[in-house]
């Protein structure tokens, strides 16, 4: 006779094991970066420009560059992503064409980032003549995170119960009023989740900014959106592989700052999301 309790315990064990297998590597990565990177962190490292061929000094221009790029990408991608998600979820008819479009968008999220980089190079840098600039880089990153933002926003909008829409419409509200006052407010937590994911990806990718904005070494702050900029992930790549004899401390310090920056930006979004979730009343 099979013992159902034993079966349950075995299942539980494997589920737990799988979770553990995910948590351990993440924990290790974070622990190693903190352990090796934290000693490098001091005021000079955060506020100074790189010196002695990036073997000393700080990473301030790269921090600023990454903040510019991520902000630019979100400013570009969030409104467009949200609007197209609203169109796809609320207005478009469910037919073969829209299903294909939705499928294409989901698949775009899986396109390698270097492809976006080349696309950005061709479209923004060369064709539109923005040059290698913060504008080109932000737009390229924005296009890269658009699919994530559209897909998660669409799912968030669609998860708002149909009955809410019917109630609102039955009271004589217009479709737009229904979307504006009922659907979107209840979808904001999900939309923010998409934004968080997009943010993290935009901050961390190297390939899309490689051809479109990133400066190998630019020991000053960019002075306009048409200027080149340093960025943390590319800087990390450079000091890890392109420049010999960089102190390990500086490399891990840079990684630590990048991690902390993404975490901080996510935290802001998570706090906003939490505030909205608390208001959710069903």
């Amino acid at each position, binding site marked *: 006779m099979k013992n159902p309790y034993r079966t349950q315990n075995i299942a539980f064990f494997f589920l737990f094991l799988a979770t553990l297998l995910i948590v351990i590597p993440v924990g290790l990565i974070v622990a190693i970066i903190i352990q090796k990177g934290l000693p490098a962190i001091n005021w000079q490292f955060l506020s100074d420009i790189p010196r002695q061929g990036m073997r000393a000094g700080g990473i301030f221009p790269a921090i600023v560059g990454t903040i510019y790029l991520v902000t630019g990408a979100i400013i570009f991608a969030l409104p467009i992503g949200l609007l197209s998600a609203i169109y796809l979820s609320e207005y478009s*008819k*469910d037919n073969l064409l829209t299903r294909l479009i939705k499928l294409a968008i989901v698949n775009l999220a899986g396109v390698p980032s270097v492809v976006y980089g080349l696309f950005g190079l061709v479209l923004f840098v060369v064709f539109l003549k923005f040059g290698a600039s913060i504008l080109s880089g932000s737009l390229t990153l924005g296009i890269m995170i658009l699919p994530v933002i559209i897909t998660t926003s669409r799912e968030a909008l669609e998860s708002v119960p149909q009955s809410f829409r019917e109630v*609102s*419409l*039955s*009271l*004589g*509200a217009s479709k737009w009023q229904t979307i504006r*006052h009922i659907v979107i407010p209840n979808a904001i937590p999900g939309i923010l989740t998409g934004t968080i994911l997009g943010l993290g990806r935009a901050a961390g990718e190297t390939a899309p900014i490689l051809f479109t904005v990133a400066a190998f070494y630019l020991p000053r702050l960019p002075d306009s959106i048409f200027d080149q900029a340093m960025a943390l992930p590319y800087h990390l790549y450079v000091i890890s592989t392109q420049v010999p004899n960089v102190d390990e401390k500086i490399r891990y310090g840079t990684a630590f700052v990048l991690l902390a920056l993404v975490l901080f930006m996510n935290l802001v979004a998570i706090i906003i999301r939490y505030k909205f979730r608390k208001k959710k*009343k069903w």
Partner: protein
Amino acid sequence: MVKFDIKDLNIWFGPVHALKQVSMEIQANEILSVIGPSNSGKTTFLRMLNRLNDLNQNFRMSGVVKLERKDIKNIDTELLRKRVGMVFALPLPLPLSVFDNVAYGVRMHGRKTKKILQDRVEESLKEAYLWEEVKDRLNESAFKLSGGQQQRLCIARTLAVEPEVILFDEPCSGLDPISTAKVEDAMVKLKQKYTIVLVTNNVKQAARVGDRTAFFLGGELIELDKTDKIFTAPQDKRTDGYIRGKFG
């Protein structure tokens, strides 16, 4: 006075012929009960009157529905739904406070001063016999109310936009007998001001509150007559069978 005039109404959802050749009139200030087993087309009929069926992209229809002699196709959908309110089967408060739920529809129909809103909310809650129970809880989430209170809140919300007709779609299906009695009381009083169409699975409820009763079966209107007559001397054998509980 004739409120709704329905002629040769047919409705399809994709291949399904949901309503077949229905013709009837609905009088002003009456309670028309609509009874019938599930899948008989009652709710489809009801949702035709405020064009909620239009939300289904497979919806097709033929025939004419007139509200006060005007084809409802030629009435602005928003305006039609303002004139023809609806209370759904389950209590469906919006995820807002009690006050905002009632004020929602009013706000959507143009800016109002705070005073007008407050008066309208109070008036509507009183009409729905809910005011005394919620007057100190107006800022609480509507989901904190009991099921019966939520349903009366939904009635108040519908009343607040000042409709002419109220459609009730099995409004008591999720309620206990006491809450049901309260909702029924409210309905009977409301008919002085409003025309009421009540779809119900509860045959006894139709007998209690309806002035006239319509019996639907398989998408067809089998019989429509004064409630007394339907329940004492129905013309059709199938009506008789249904109200005696022989099927459905």
